């Protein structure tokens, strides 16, 4: 075992008690599988939890694949003009449902719009909903989890039980109810339509993050450095911000990354059902919904195929990234 002792201690804070981390280390020594691949080589300077994870991450092909995909999709969301010079709203009924050709790389849809342009422009809604919903759940969930874990007592009980209640409503079913109750009118601005979907996901999604944050705060709290900070008379706000949060937020970030992917998928599902985003908004879910009428699937499968492919790749990229960082932060890997 070449690993410096400090780094295994630091990782200890992440999610496993000292006993199991030690157990994992012993097991690796016995089996001799992972110990050879995971050992760091750089100097003797102990690395922090974060630089240790970054060290592992850089060596994971999954990470690089997902990072490249995510950068491409974010560019697509910010500057769709980089990828296409066609206008997605410039439609010509006389060329409806044409197969892919040099003029229309992905073919044209029912209205004669260019499927490639619509797919590129569709990235914006999905990425926007994904990022905002993830931020929303992460902020609400982390705040609730921090308070519950740090304060304990009746406040913990109250917050945890409230979380249980929201947790009991499945995301998609609850989303249907919320979005159905607040329908969009014809003139509703685009950003309001997007924010409704974000709000629905944030209202129903925060308890899982709160649970996670609470449990990792509880694991961090008994450590010596927290006790030392308390003994030195640090205020609760300072302890939380400079000691508890940095050591407890890794699991939340990993799970939030994975959630980002699933929020994109749920947004598309809601749009597919006809209550998420709607025309004239351009989104992958809306395109897929348009394309999946039975007759069209047979006669023009490309209308379905390309938006589906982009949607799946975007979800996959975030799930891969989450998976890679989960492995990098996992103390059992060494």
């Amino acid at each position, binding site marked *: 075992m070449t690993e410096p002792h400090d780094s295994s201690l630091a990782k200890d804070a992440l999610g496993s008690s000292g006993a199991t981390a030690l157990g994992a280390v012993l097991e690796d020594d016995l089996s001799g599988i992972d110990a050879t691949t995971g050992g760091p080589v750089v100097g003797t300077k102990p690395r922090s939890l974060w630089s240790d994870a970054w060290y592992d991450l850089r060596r994971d092909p999954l990470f690089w694949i997902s990072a490249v995909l995510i950068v491409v999709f974010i560019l697509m969301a910010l500057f769709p003009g980089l990828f296409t010079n066609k206008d997605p709203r410039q439609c010509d009924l006389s060329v409806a449902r044409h197969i892919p050709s040099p003029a229309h790389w992905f073919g044209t849809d029912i209205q004669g719009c260019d499927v490639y342009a619509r797919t590129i422009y569709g990235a914006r809604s999905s990425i926007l909903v994904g990022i905002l919903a993830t931020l929303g759940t992460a902020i609400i969930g982390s705040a609730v989890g921090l308070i519950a874990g740090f304060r304990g007592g009746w406040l913990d009980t109250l917050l945890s039980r409230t979380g249980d209640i929201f947790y009991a409503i499945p995301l998609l079913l609850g989303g249907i109810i919320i979005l159905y*109750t607040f329908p969009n009118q014809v003139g509703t601005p685009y950003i309001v339509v997007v924010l409704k979907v974000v709000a629905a996901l944030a209202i129903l999604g925060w308890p899982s993050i709160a649970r996670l944050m609470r449990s990792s705060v509880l694991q961090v709290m008994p450590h010596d450095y927290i006790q030392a900070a308390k003994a030195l008379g640090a205020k609760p706000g300072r302890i939380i911000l400079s000691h508890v949060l940095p050591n407890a937020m890794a699991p939340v970030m990993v799970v939030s990354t994975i959630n980002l992917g699933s929020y994109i998928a749920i947004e598309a599902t809601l749009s597919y059902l006809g209550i998420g985003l709607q025309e004239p908004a351009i989104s992958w879910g809306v395109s897929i919904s348009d394309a999946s009428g039975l007759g069209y699937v047979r006669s023009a499968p490309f209308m379905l195929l390309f938006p589906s492919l982009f949607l799946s790749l975007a979800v996959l990229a975030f799930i891969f990234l989450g998976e890679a960082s989960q492995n990098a932060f996992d103390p059992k890997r060494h």
Partner: protein
Amino acid sequence: MLKYVIRRLLQMIPVVIGATFILFCLVFALPGDPTAGRCGDRPCPPAYVAAFRAEYHLDKPLLVQYGLYLGRLLHGDLGVNFYGNTVVSELAARYPVTLRLAFIAVLVEIFVGIAAGVIAGVRHGGFLDYLILVSSLVVISIPIFVIGSLAQLVFGMKLGWFPVTAGDGSWSQLVLPGFVLGALSVAYVARLTRANLIDNQHADYVRTAKAKGLSGFRIVTIHTLRNSLIPVITFIGYDFGSLMGGAIVTEQIFNINGIGNFIFRSINQRDGVSVVGAVTCLVLVYLLANLLVDLLYGVLDPRISHD
């Protein structure tokens, strides 16, 4: 054990009350017009609004409204829809098909998911393990309506192996939709089984079994797998919620006349009473399923119910 059952039942009560209260608030009590979207795309006529407000006692204080609403729920009254049918009777006519579909999906989850997880776990670190891990991530990333449409296109239309739609909902027609509905959870079940199997491989009882000279196959099937499956079974129970959400999409794609398709059609016809009633019913079924899984967990793992 009895103490455990009673404690679980008691813990369930605030969750049911809280969840129905949230649903109630979302539908009736938040700022905004509760009759919006209930009369198609036009605003409701004043007479309907008045009748609606009287029916749901919207002029009374919030808690009284909620109490009356809960009373109606307990009597199985989910409202009357556009067509003058009670939502309960609409659901009653459709639930057998949905139940059959869910049953097939759960079977697929159990057999395919656990088999893949065991293969990956036994070959931990090998090529098959990596293949199963990555392909499970790919399956998780593809939204169910994409999987469904593609499966329908490839296996139904191009290859002709399965019926393209399942209009009358017989078992044979539901096989392909069942696989589609179960696909996402299969991936989760496989990953969970694998992770638990690997964790348990170093347990003391496995070492003892090895020391006794048992074959590798016997150790996995009799000892490790049995202990690894407990979290998997609870996952399948909790997963019921996403299964019902997925059923809405799957039934729409394959034109299955079940509860999911009813919800989908009601959304598109803007039949609000049906949407809200049916979804509320599904949430209650989901809560019940969770309760049963918790009780089952206590039976399967005696450590849980003994504290």
